[in-house]
């Protein structure tokens, strides 16, 4: 397994803080989308609390996986990281420099962070040829069109699309997998250090997905990239990620290495999520759904711990107090009152614990 703190052999000349400094540090990010007031404009003001106090860091050279279900805020977080939308409060620090401040203006930041979207078709301008789409980014930053086109052709070849056959084509002539490769090439055209993959393989057939995942790994190695890999597919996240972040209703509920989170989850939601994945083993069919009901609405989240309404281990104190994020082992933490000393939570005997109790380990 990759050592999370090791970087690639060659150090990026743009590197500022060295391998120990996180590439991106997200601090207390908040984004609420206000809704129209009910009652002819005089009703109470409500908002979709899409991202409600999210903090984490992305280390250089790693793949940080983000999992969560609808309404958890992972897509909004991705867009905030890209500054496609602006946060209500909170800070982004890229290699030690605050994004948007004088030390790192937005335009420079955009050269270092890029994103691949889920819908491969709508991410490409239907009226532009493939090579023009890929070459667009560099031309914006002063690269001559000839050099930009050359770079585009190089990248298309790198992602497995023969430039002679594909460069002059339009998006509708390509398959989903091919289009996603173009999107990856387009993201790499600006030579970023961080690439955000927002459900980048979710819409692809499994066999195509495998090809694209292999490609992403190769490119990461070749270009010394760092990935933020967002997906709802836990198997894929486990396969791709060094560390994993679990989100629920706009907040981070657990963070740890992939092994820690998948083999010894600390948060009841993580555990339920893991057990919801069909095992694919016909001898071990699921007999009981780990969670009942649908993920609640981010408009009016439950009081206290947001998961308490669906948690099998909830107690009275869970509806009253919002849990802090507590580190339970090196690099592994969860936001659950059970791990918070002095919270008043009394852990029941069947509460999922570490691998001290191997029988409790989630089957994945």
């Amino acid at each position, binding site marked *: 397994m990759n050592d999370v703190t090791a970087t690639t052999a060659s150090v990026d000349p743009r590197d500022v803080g060295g391998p120990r400094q996180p590439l991106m540090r997200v601090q207390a990010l908040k984004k609420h989308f206000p809704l129209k007031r009910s009652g002819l404009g005089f009703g109470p003001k409500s908002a979709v609390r899409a991202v409600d106090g999210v903090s984490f860091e992305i280390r250089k050279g790693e793949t940080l996986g983000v999992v969560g279900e609808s309404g958890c805020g992972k897509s909004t977080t991705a*867009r905030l990281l*890209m500054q*496609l939308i602006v946060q209500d409060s909170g800070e982004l620090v890229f290699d030690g420099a605050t994004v948007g401040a004088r030390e790192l203006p*937005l*335009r420079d930041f*955009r*050269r270092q962070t*890029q*994103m691949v*979207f889920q*819908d491969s078709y*709508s*991410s*490409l*301008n*239907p*009226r*532009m*040829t493939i090579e023009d*789409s890929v070459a*667009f*980014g560099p031309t*914006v*930053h002063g690269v001559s069109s000839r050099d930009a086109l050359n770079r585009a052709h190089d990248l298309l*070849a*790198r*992602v*497995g*699309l*023969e430039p*002679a*056959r*594909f*460069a*002059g*084509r*339009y998006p*509708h*002539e390509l*398959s989903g997998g*091919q289009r996603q490769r173009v*999107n990856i090439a*387009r993201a790499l055209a*600006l030579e970023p250090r961080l690439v955000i993959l927002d459900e980048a393989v979710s819409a692809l057939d499994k066999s195509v997905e495998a*090809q694209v995942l*292999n*490609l992403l790994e*190769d*490119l990461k190695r*070749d270009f010394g990239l760092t990935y933020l890999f967002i997906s709802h597919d836990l198997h894929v996240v486990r396969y791709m990620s060094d560390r994993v972040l679990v989100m629920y209703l706009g907040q981070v509920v657990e963070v740890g290495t992939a092994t820690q989170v998948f083999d010894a989850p600390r948060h009841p939601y993580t555990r339920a999520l893991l057990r919801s994945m069909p095992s694919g083993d016909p001898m071990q069919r699921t007999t009981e759904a780990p969670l009942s009901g649908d993920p609640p609405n981010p408009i009016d989240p439950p009081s206290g711990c947001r998961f308490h309404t669906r948690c099998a281990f909830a107690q009275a104190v869970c509806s009253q107090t919002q849990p802090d994020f507590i580190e339970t082992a090196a690099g592994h933490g969860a936001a659950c009152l059970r791990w918070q000393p002095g919270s008043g939570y009394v852990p029941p005997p069947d509460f999922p614990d570490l691998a001290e109790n191997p029988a409790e380990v989630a089957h994945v």
Partner: protein
Amino acid sequence: MSATAATSITASAPLQAVRSRSHGANVLRRLVRNPVAMTAAAIISLLILIAIFAPWIMPADPFATSMFKRLRPVGTPGFPLGSDELGRDLLSRLMLGGRLSLFMGIAPVIMAFVIGSALGILAGYAGGKVNTVIMRCIDVLYAFPSVLLAIALSGALGAGITNALISLTVVFVPQIARIAESVTTQVRRSDYVDAARASGAPALTIVRRHVFGNVIGPIFVYSTSLISVSMILASGLSFLGLGVKPPQPEWGLMLNTLRTAIYSQPLIAALPGVLIFVTSVSFNMLADGLRNAMEVKQ
């Protein structure tokens, strides 16, 4: 590096050509295959050519009056389509009249297209307060029925071609701006515009390279459908005495002056109307064909 070898796609998909036909070329191809649209295009081209070359091909002087030869029927020697209420050759007047009628149909739409698109794209891309200000001002004009607005503006500005042009342009700008804003807002929301923003491109570049090409098509198609409306409105203004002034030949004006002849020579009186009708329908058919050609999603 190993990337290409391990992950490249082996050729079994039937893609041979290197450079694909652009969207515009595809639209043209489909349009050409549409018999109705092509017939309409042929009719319009013919009318435009006749109008342009009218001074050279007219059989008689459109301004030569003769009180003895008033209201002759179709087929009278010297007057192939008859003569009007002042004895002028109708065919020559219809041919020359085409110039103004077609001009009054097309010119206001072109001007409104430019102004309306600019306003609509600006409002659609900028969003927020800019959008609100522009669109609500547009709405004020849009609230008036177009005929009423045209008449009111023409009346205020006075008779004459230029004033009629201005009032018609003002009538069409809100309609085109609305379409432009709506389409631009949709395109603005798409992922590829977000990707362009994410690459650090300034707004103007994004509008120029990404938004423009994708919105201009639908706006253009909508605008072509307004040409027939413009022709009829212009004819209506002339009919009311607000546009073209006599003795200038113009189909709408001719309809007015020939009104009194409707009992004695109904065919003569109807001819200018027939031409207006044929031209409007042709423009509509062409606009329809264009819309169908653009709509097909490959």
